[in-house]
């Protein structure tokens, strides 16, 4: 195995030969664009004048009091236009695709946030946009499906496999193999073949760059702990990257334990998987004894993915970040607490990070600060929450 595009032993580019020249072209275009001040200025213009950056750092005042420990601070990616951090990456990649002369954009989506973000940017530039989405996710995320239609994108249902994000990604890659001449594939997370994990990290690191600056301005100090949820892991890489050199800052990724690791119905690749190749990258993977990729479960569609970005695997091996899990039930309870104590309806994905932040805040005790990436807002999850919560829980 070569070292190109590797994070430790993870990463690489395991793709059909047809795509190899396209990935080389993308890598060259990425390096050229990111070194061009005009490109960075154009991207910043969109991030600050359109997407609504910078996002605030908010003290979760009542939640902190209830936990009785460290202060819990929220990096408010839920306030980015379209309701999640996904727009940071979609803007960057579509701007890059335009620079490369691509006229057609495709994407995969799980919760629908990345699909909505990509459709949004394509609307801004009048680009054709096709979004692949598993049939099961279409059922779970009807609101986002409708939004993508409003924005002019075509949502193509995927009926293969488990009909979720993994299968939508397969189908998007097959589309790209077929239409590679005029099409750019906007991957939504720090997964996939090189250079995608590096490219998506570059466009998401704005989260942590801002948060670190805000922390220093506001507190004159860095957080003790940074917590983020991990499906593919783009919001986590986005907030972790700025703190990697700050050795005293603990980085904690939270995987979805679903109905419990012991039930097998979860999506915790780092916790319960072993290394393998999915979607072009070597990383931790939930798979059976024969190397077939396993079906996963999480109440949150955005975490319902059997793989994880290769840099997370490397950060764990290097013990620079640690990874823990949170069940559906724990995430739901934190979802409700944030609604009622802070007036913020969080995405179910972000609720996993919140649950662990509450746990860590109690352990750390007063005088410390926990920074949570509130990666998205929960409007898209209302139907799911209504279906699984007790009748009185939503309005008690």
């Amino acid at each position, binding site marked *: *195995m*070569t070292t*190109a595009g590797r994070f430790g032993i993870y990463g*690489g*580019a*395991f*793709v*059909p*030969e*047809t*795509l*190899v*020249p*396209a990935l080389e072209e993308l890598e060259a275009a990425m390096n050229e664009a990111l070194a061009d001040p005009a490109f960075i200025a154009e991207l910043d213009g969109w991030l600050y004048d359109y997407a609504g950056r910078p996002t605030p750092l908010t003290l979760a005042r009542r939640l902190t009091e209830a936990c009785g420990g460290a202060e819990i601070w929220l990096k408010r990616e839920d306030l980015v236009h379209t309701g999640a951090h996904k727009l940071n990456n979609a803007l960057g990649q579509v701007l890059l695709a335009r620079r490369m002369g691509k006229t057609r954009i495709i994407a995969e989506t799980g919760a629908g946030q990345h699909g909505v973000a990509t459709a949004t940017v394509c609307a801004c530039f009048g680009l054709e946009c096709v979004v692949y989405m598993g049939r099961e996710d279409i059922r779970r995320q009807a609101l986002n499906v409708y939004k993508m239609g409003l924005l002019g994108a075509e949502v193509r249902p995927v009926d*293969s*496999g488990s009909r979720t994000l*993994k*299968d939508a990604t*397969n189908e998007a*890659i*097959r589309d790209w*193999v*077929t*239409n*590679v*001449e005029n099409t750019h594939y906007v991957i939504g997370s720090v997964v996939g073949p090189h250079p995608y994990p590096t490219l998506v990290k570059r466009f998401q690191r704005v989260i942590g760059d801002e948060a670190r600056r805000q922390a220093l301005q506001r507190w004159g100090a860095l957080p003790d702990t940074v917590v983020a949820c991990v499906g593919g892991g783009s919001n986590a890489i986005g907030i972790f990257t700025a703190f990697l050199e700050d050795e005293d800052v603990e980085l904690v990724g939270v995987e979805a334990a679903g109905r419990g690791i012991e039930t097998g119905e979860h999506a915790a690749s780092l916790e319960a998987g072993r*290394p*393998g*190749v*999915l*979607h*072009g990258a070597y990383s931790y*993977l939930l*798979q059976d*004894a*024969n*190397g*077939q*990729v396993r079906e996963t479960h999480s109440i949150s569609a955005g975490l319902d993915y059997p793989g994880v970005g290769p840099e997370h695997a490397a950060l764990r091996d290097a013990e620079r970040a640690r990874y823990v899990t949170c069940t559906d039930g724990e995430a739901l309870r934190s979802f409700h607490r944030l609604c009622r104590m802070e007036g913020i309806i969080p995405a179910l994905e972000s609720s996993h990070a919140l649950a662990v932040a509450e746990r860590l805040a109690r352990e750390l005790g007063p005088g410390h600060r926990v920074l949570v990436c509130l990666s998205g807002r929960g409007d898209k999850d209302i139907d799911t929450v209504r279906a699984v919560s007790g009748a009185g829980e939503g309005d008690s």
Partner: protein
Amino acid sequence: MTAATAGRFEAAFAAGAAGGRPGIIPYVTAGFPGPDDTAPLLLACQRAGSLAAEVGIPFSDPLADGPTIQSAGWRALEQGMTPARAISEVARARDAGLTIPVAAMTYINPVLTMGIEAFAGACAAAGIDGVIVPDLPVEEAAGLAASLGAHGVAHIPLVAPTTPTSRVARVAATAAGFIYCVSVTGTTGARESVSPAALDLLERVRSVTALPRALGFGISRPEHVEALTGHCEAVVVGSALLDAIASGGDDPGAIAERFVRELRGVGAAG
């Protein structure tokens, strides 16, 4: 044993090198349509005069495959097919008289799970002559190619219409047996015609290597094979064959035999 397996492709291509129609390499998914159908299908392909055969070891997430091979693989997995069992189906066919070369096609994750060295050894022991891994470009292939080579099994790489000629040369340098030429920018699955890009690719491959060329992805009809006379040494036909098997009744072997004969342009007696 290993020396003999490495030679099967050479012998088969040498025997067919008369400038005639390309030889036929039928593709069957191991465990499709039923768990015990694979060895009989391979023998039927041999009876029909196939140059070689390709056996797909199913994987849950086959990125390079279109709907036909995806669903065949899915069905095989649901019926319990595993990489070890797929390999043993080839051994079973060899015991029953299969002498044509056999290539196994699978994805890299099942290979890594078995272990590259164990996989290469199992292939050699079962009489598999070559291995095709469509998600393993040349940058990632050195380890597998070395292990296969040590066991006398050919590493058969793929090139595509988007592959620059300089890269074709680099890929060809790692190849044994033959070069798998992908006819389209796309996934496997039957197509209406053979594209000009495919003919261009075949010429570019010939300009950098003397290895036999097999064209695959989309080849489905006798007229495609006829039209490729003089352009390549073999064609791989998968989805069209699996479609015929899936819709053709309860004797997959007879269907495959008839299908391959038609592709060869010979009658039932040929």
